[in-house]
């Protein structure tokens, strides 16, 4: 019976005549994002009722913007967690990405687009190193990436101070290449009087791509397989090492992406920024139904998790409450989400037998 659950992500084959056909309610309950979606609707309605200023389209898009800056990285962190690994360096890597671009371009007088590419290569290299070390040494990714978290945090400060003499990057807004790159990463457009940030669109696109990879491609099956049981995945010929390293590199790619957004929206970055955001990505993934132990979760769930985060963090402000309590809400929500996931998962497995 446990076989049934672990095989959940594998698409049912057409000739599975001996399979139990599931009712729609069972199918719904089996989805990892179901609990999160229910929670999101409840929270949305809740803030709609108590916070009048939350109801305007403007506010909704502010929430979506806030969600997207967490949600984009969370897409990759969610995939990585489905693949059975963690990345604690993702929060500071966002800042590293921006700093590398700013410092490199500013002090060598190089066009910002080149700097952005250098930064991309640098970030992918860190992602590769994270993955390589985890696979090579067998040390849990929690520890390896905790190490790279500290290394990057220190290097962000140390290198910035060494190169610029201050602890924030120089203002890059007057350098060559700023306007095209800025309008791409940090642009916004107005639809019906509402400002929509590009990041929101990118977020949706990345979620769609992630969903497609996870559910429609071979690589997606591999990711669930390595997260479910790496040894048996290897036994059936899944390139475990490549899949996991690829996932770490995906995280660093999207961290780079958001890093570009922060740099080009704010023109300068403080070297100490980003610390703590790694937990928000993980929280988004977990609230969205991703299993900490790997092998279970989906892209939509992670997106809903990030949306819940954005909604709660700003909803409290829109409601006029004291935001000092925000972290407390976040903690309670996290535990509730995990409990709900657990409960629904049990419910769906229990019903299937009967």
């Amino acid at each position, binding site marked *: 019976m446990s076989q049934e659950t672990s095989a959940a992500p594998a698409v049912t084959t057409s000739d599975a005549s001996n399979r139990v056909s599931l009712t729609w309610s069972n199918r719904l309950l089996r989805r990892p994002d179901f609990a999160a979606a229910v929670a999101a609707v409840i929270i949305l309605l809740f803030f709609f009722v108590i*916070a009048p*200023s939350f109801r*305007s389209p*403007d*506010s909704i898009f*502010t*929430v979506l*913007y*806030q969600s997207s*800056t967490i949600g984009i990285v969370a897409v990759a962190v969610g995939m990585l967690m489905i693949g059975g690994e963690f990345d604690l360096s993702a929060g500071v890597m966002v800042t590293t990405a921006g700093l590398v671009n700013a410092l490199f371009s500013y002090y060598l007088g190089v066009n910002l687009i080149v700097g952005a590419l250098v930064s991309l290569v640098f970030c992918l290299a860190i992602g590769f190193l994270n993955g390589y070390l985890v696979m090579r040494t067998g040390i849990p990714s929690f520890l390896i990436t905790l190490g790279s978290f500290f290394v990057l*945090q220190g290097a*962000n*400060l140390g290198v*910035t*101070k*060494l190169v610029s*003499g*201050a*602890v*924030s990057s120089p*203002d890059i807004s007057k350098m060559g290449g700023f306007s095209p790159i800025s309008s791409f990463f940090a642009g916004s457009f107005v639809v019906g009087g509402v*400002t929509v940030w590009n990041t929101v669109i990118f977020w949706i696109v990345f979620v769609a791509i992630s969903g497609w990879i996870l559910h429609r491609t071979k690589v997606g099956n591999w990711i669930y397989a390595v997260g479910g049981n790496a040894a048996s995945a290897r036994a059936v010929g899944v390139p475990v090492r490549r899949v996991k390293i690829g996932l770490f590199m995906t995280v660093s790619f999207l961290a780079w992406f958001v890093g570009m*957004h*922060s740099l080009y*929206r*704010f*023109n*300068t*970055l*403080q*070297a*100490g*920024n*980003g*610390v*703590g*955001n790694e937990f928000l990505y993980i929280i988004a993934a977990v609230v969205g139904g991703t299993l900490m132990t790997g092998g279970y979760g989906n892209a939509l769930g992670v997106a809903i998790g990030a949306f819940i985060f*954005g909604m709660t*963090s*700003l909803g409290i*402000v*829109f*409601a*006029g409450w*004291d*935001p*000092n309590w*925000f972290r407390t809400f976040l903690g309670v929500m996290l535990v509730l989400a995990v409990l709900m996931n657990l409960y629904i998962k049990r419910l769906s497995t229990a019903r299937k037998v009967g």
Partner: protein
Amino acid sequence: MNLTSRRRLLLVGASVATLGLTLSACSSGGAQSTKSASSADCKSNTYTIAMITHEAPGDTFWDKIRAGAQAAAKNECIKLNYSADPQADKQAQLIQTAVDSKVDGIATTLVTPDALAGSVKAATDAGIPLVGFNSGIDAYKKLGALEYFGSDETLAGQTVGERLTSQGVKHPLCVIQAAGSVALEARCAGVKAKNPGTENMQVNGTDDSAVVSSIQAKLTQDPSIDAIVTLGAPIAMDALKSMSAANSKAKLVTFDLNVDAAQAIKDGKIEFSVDQQPYVQGYMAVTALYLYLKNGNDIGGGGPVLTGPSFVDKSNIAKILPFAKNNTR
């Protein structure tokens, strides 16, 4: 055999380390000459002074304190040992470490007086002169610190409150970017004391986009907010973005300066900044210890020496802007 191979390993290690040191010494040339406190023009160090702060890593404000301290140390050929930890117990431990290593003087922030009292006493018991700076204006004497250099946060807040009230502001929003900071709370409390309509708000200071969205949400929720008081220059820059996104006409006032904030004051986007002159705090703390050790001087004569509040607005920004660009203001 075993010994020789180990020795060879040591030798290789040592030469690699030397190479590394040489390289880093080379690469830190040029603009970085201000960084090394005891530089080439000093034949020997006069004194060793330990500076211990509660700096949260990567804040531009602390960078200025440090720049001031280093400039003073360089002038007097002092060897400056800078260390910092935002957690009270760790900061106390750092002070204890300075005492144990028998430095000639200690300059420390007294942000959590009760937690630091034991270590400060250990320093005075050991006969090491200790001055407080930046925070602890009400506690430094009781703890046994010789002198104090800094701003009175409550007073600074009150001055802001008064100035806003005189401009007809009814409902200022005071934005706190670090949870549980005594100094930041004191500033907002000071503002509220002179402008009762003041409301506090907590934001996540390490994430600019979160700061922007949160302030923007607050402005949307409560359009009666007619002034925003930020407690750090980078937060003021975020607030500007929130205001334009929320179409808010609120006045913006900030504490502290950086290049961007100074420019925004010049452009009229920020009304004024309350500067506690962190560069001066670092500079004076080190210099005061030097004068005490060298000459027995007692700056302030037992009373606190105030480095602020100093107002930066349209009237004086032209003079101050170049210093801000220089990371000294």
